[in-house]
């Protein structure tokens, strides 16, 4: 009987796992149009893409999947007052509230489009959000030895097979959060991304963050999906300090209970 129970539990787990594996991969794909059915171009990723996420409140990985923090990171985390997640407070200190760049990789998890423009030497990634851009060098160069810390880092990429772009990035400052929940990272952060074009209109996106100064283990993001948005032109979405300041006085502060100034 224990064997039968065990096999039932194991069987249930297998069925559930396959249900989720299937729904995770198939749900966002669009097989209904002729264009989507056409094969994706090989080693080519140009186009406007939109992450199929919820609303800018995500982090690199969900809180439940975050590895243990080092004492250094715990001290940073304790000082952060995020607007989202289990520690959310209405009047937080998210850096983007004062128009600091959200930076990379946080910029990946907003539901605003970005555009890939591919050239022989590099793939440019233009983000509507923050009106920011990021070059991904695909000319075979190595990552620099000692890059200056920046908001978006230094990235090199290569094709793995015909449909997966693998990008390695280093050279980040430690002023940004890994997402809206306030998780910190250090300047030692190294990010590995995989953009797998699973059909013409869909990228399966996987991200891994290695930052031993801040976390005991690598952070592994859940598989996410981006959809091609033909015909969409990316606009500009900078955080404009004067406008943000006016907005803060007129809406954000009253919303959290501070008097309208």
């Amino acid at each position, binding site marked *: 009987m224990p064997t039968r129970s065990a096999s*039932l539990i194991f069987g249930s787990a297998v069925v559930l796992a396959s249900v989720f594996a299937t729904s995770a991969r198939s749900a966002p794909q669009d097989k209904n149009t002729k264009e989507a059915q056409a094969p994706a171009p090989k080693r080519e990723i140009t186009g406007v893409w939109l992450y199929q996420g919820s609303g800018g409140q995500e982090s690199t990985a969900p809180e439940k999947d975050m590895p243990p923090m080092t004492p250094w990171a715990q001290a940073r985390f304790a000082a952060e007052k995020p607007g*989202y997640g289990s520690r959310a407070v*209405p009047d937080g200190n998210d850096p983007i509230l004062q128009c600091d760049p959200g930076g990379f990789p946080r910029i990946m998890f907003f539901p*605003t489009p970005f555009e890939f423009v591919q050239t022989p030497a590099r793939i440019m990634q233009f983000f*509507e959000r923050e009106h920011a851009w990021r070059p991904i060098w695909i000319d075979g160069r190595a990552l620099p030895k000692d890059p200056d810390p920046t908001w978006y880092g230094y990235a090199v990429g290569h094709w793995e097979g015909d449909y997966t772009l693998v990008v390695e990035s280093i050279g980040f400052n430690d002023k940004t959060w890994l997402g809206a929940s306030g998780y910190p990272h250090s300047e030692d952060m190294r990010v590995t991304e995989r953009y797998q074009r699973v059909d013409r209109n869909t990228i399966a996106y996987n991200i891994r963050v290695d930052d031993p100064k801040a976390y005991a283990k690598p952070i592994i993001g859940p598989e996410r999906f981006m959809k091609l948005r033909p015909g969409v032109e990316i*606009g500009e979405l900078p955080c404009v300090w004067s406008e943000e300041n006016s907005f803060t006085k007129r809406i*954000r502060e009253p919303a959290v209970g501070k008097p309208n100034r």
Partner: protein
Amino acid sequence: MKSKLLLFCTLIVTVLVFCASMQAHHGNAAYDEQHPITINGNVTEFVWSNPHCQIYLDVKGEKGSVVSWSVESQSPGILRRNSWTRDSIKPGDHIAVTLVPAKSGAPVGFSGEKSGKIVFDDGHVLKMDLR
């Protein structure tokens, strides 16, 4: 065996429902996202700016009092993809705004969820569900 099958089915349904709810929106802590409301009023100002467009309107309360509401919306880029323009809302327009109100109780709200919308007196609707 029947009871095990039932347990198994219950397990699957529970996990699927749980996963569906996990995909629902997690809230901006300032707003009560569980309780959207609709307010009706006359527009006093429409601000088309980054990163948040804003709508200001006067709402008549009971006994003729007027409350000035401030409404946060999405960025111009997102609204433009939903066919808004910088002239979509003008001072003097009478509109119904579906929003989630501030928890503070102040007359402030957020109309930028995919469920948010603006309805004009002539029936035309501005939505914001497309990203």
